[in-house]
């Protein structure tokens, strides 16, 4: 950057020379300022007793008292715990799943079989959680779903997958992996395709078997991609999947299934406790952002691959 800029030309002149490009930038810029940065400014209401008529600026300041209220509400901590439990399970199982899937798919020799499997595995990614919610409601239903029909056929008792607190979280994790395993594997498959095949041939000549090839060629080649995806995934640790949970949960499983985003939605938009819900959101955002920065810093320390 700095090398291209000539230091003698004043900044305004540079913008004038690029005025056509700057005009193109403006609509998008306005969008980001209005719809992305104004809401960030709107986070101020977490420190205010917000009411719509006084607006963001006019509402009276309350300092940190909204946060005190949030942190002393037992339901908040229940929701916080649920979010951490669900997100960490989805992370521990959902992060390696597409990598393993890509590695296994890579071992399939037939090109046609490979392409067919890929095409099928991307399918759930394109279907919204509203549709999948309706679909799983029928599919997992204890009275009319094929899964329970199969369980009964094998002599088991029907399971209330979506209404039993013991089953709800495993169902969330399983359906999440199911939806994202194929799509998530694309980037790893691309990285696998870019590995020089001669490396494998040489290893085979030397008598390296499958496992040795995996450990000494494939995994090191995937390391940069895995690192970046890992950092991004840690940034999402506090982000529960609102679309998924909102369409699958019901009062019977609130105890384990109510998470930060659904809580914010109910507190903020259904009960209109704007400041309270915003404080919960800000707390969540700050936590996510800190985790992301921490993971990025750590990754750079360990193997030099970071986001920035």
């Amino acid at each position, binding site marked *: 950057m700095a090398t291209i800029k000539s230091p003698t030309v004043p900044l305004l002149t540079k913008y004038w020379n690029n005025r056509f490009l700057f005009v193109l930038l403006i609509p998008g810029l306005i969008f980001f300022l209005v719809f992305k940065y104004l809401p960030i400014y709107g986070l101020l209401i977490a420190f205010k007793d917000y009411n719509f008529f006084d607006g963001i600026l006019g509402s009276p300041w309350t300092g940190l008292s909204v946060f005190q209220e949030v942190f002393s509400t037992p339901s908040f901590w229940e929701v916080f715990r649920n979010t951490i439990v669900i997100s960490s399970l989805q992370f521990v199982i959902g992060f390696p799943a597409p990598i393993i899937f890509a590695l296994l798919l890579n071992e399939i020799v037939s090109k046609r079989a490979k392409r067919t499997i890929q095409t099928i595995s991307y399918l759930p990614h394109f*279907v919204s959680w*509203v549709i999948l919610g309706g679909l799983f409601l029928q599919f997992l239903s204890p009275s009319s779903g*094929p899964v329970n029909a199969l369980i009964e056929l094998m002599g088991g008792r029907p399971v209330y997958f979506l209404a039993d607190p013991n089953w709800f979280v495993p169902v969330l994790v399983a359906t999440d992996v199911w939806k994202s395993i194929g799509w998530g594997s694309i980037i790893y498959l691309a990285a696998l395709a870019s590995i020089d095949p001669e490396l494998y041939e040489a290893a085979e000549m030397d008598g390296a078997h499958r496992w040795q090839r995996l450990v000494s060629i494939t995994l090191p080649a995937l390391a940069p991609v895995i690192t970046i995806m890992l950092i991004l995934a840690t940034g999402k640790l506090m982000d529960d999947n609102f679309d998924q949970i909102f369409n699958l949960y019901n009062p019977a499983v609130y105890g384990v299934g109510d998470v930060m985003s659904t809580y914010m939605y109910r507190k903020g938009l259904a009960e209109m406790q704007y400041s309270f819900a915003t404080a919960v959101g800000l707390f969540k955002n700050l936590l996510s952002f800190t985790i992301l920065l921490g993971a990025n810093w750590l990754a750079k320390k360990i193997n030099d691959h970071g986001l920035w």
Partner: protein
Amino acid sequence: MNTVVHRTVRKKQTLGDRIFSGLNYAFMILLCASMVYPFLFIILSSVSTYDMSAGGFSLVPRGFTWDYYGRVLTNPDIFTGYVNTLIRTLLGTFFSVVVTLCMAYPLSKRTFPNRTGWTALVVFTMFFSGGIIPTYLLVKSLGLMDTLGSLILPELVSAFNLIIVRNYMQTVPESLEESAKMDGANDVTILFRIILPVCAPIIATITLWVAVWHWNAWYDAMVYISSPGNQVIQLIMRRIVIQGSDALTQMMDSSMSQNHISPEGLKAATIMVTTLPILCAYPFVQKYFVKGILVGSLKG
């Protein structure tokens, strides 16, 4: 050379290799079945007269009828929702793609002043946002409640798409533009005659991307849209299938004939009607999607 090596290797397949390969195929088949069967079940359910699972696991419908589709397609709520979704998808995708392209182009130019700063401004929003309440209050105070604007504007440009397009534009060799400039082409001509044609694949990708997003979007409609006449299909479907709303009983009651009606069949037909455009377009768009991901993430 390569083929020769491969052939000799394949001959030497050990028993372990074969077992691994067999298990691998078995796993893949099971996984694919788990992805296809739920959709197949809904398709079967939507045309079968009797409840699909009453007779256990099945691969054929139990009695055949188009009745459910007839009821779903003649339901006025569903029709309105379809039209609204179509409108938001067409307009929303158009504006989104145009603004994204306009913004990506300057950010792809090395000579553009403060390029890194403007890009950082965009990227920051990927990791930190105001969240649902401030966004809701903003939409409300802009007077967008219950309008098409509330479905199009708040997510007009996705930072992710923008970066992908910018990365793609950066791969266009600068010599191409310079030679055009030599020939006296101005910035506008360069953008329309050179940049956009070269970027056709990535434009197609994000167009489809945004279109699918709009088709599937429901949360914004749930929060911002209050009049039934402005509602989108996903939310109407949600009410019928997940909440079992009045529309469902309406459709159940509207039977002139004495045919057997199961609510499961009606729900399945509603799901199908909502999903069909995606399922039909899927084989075609799938390739573009994959390309887009690769271009954006690897070349970036």
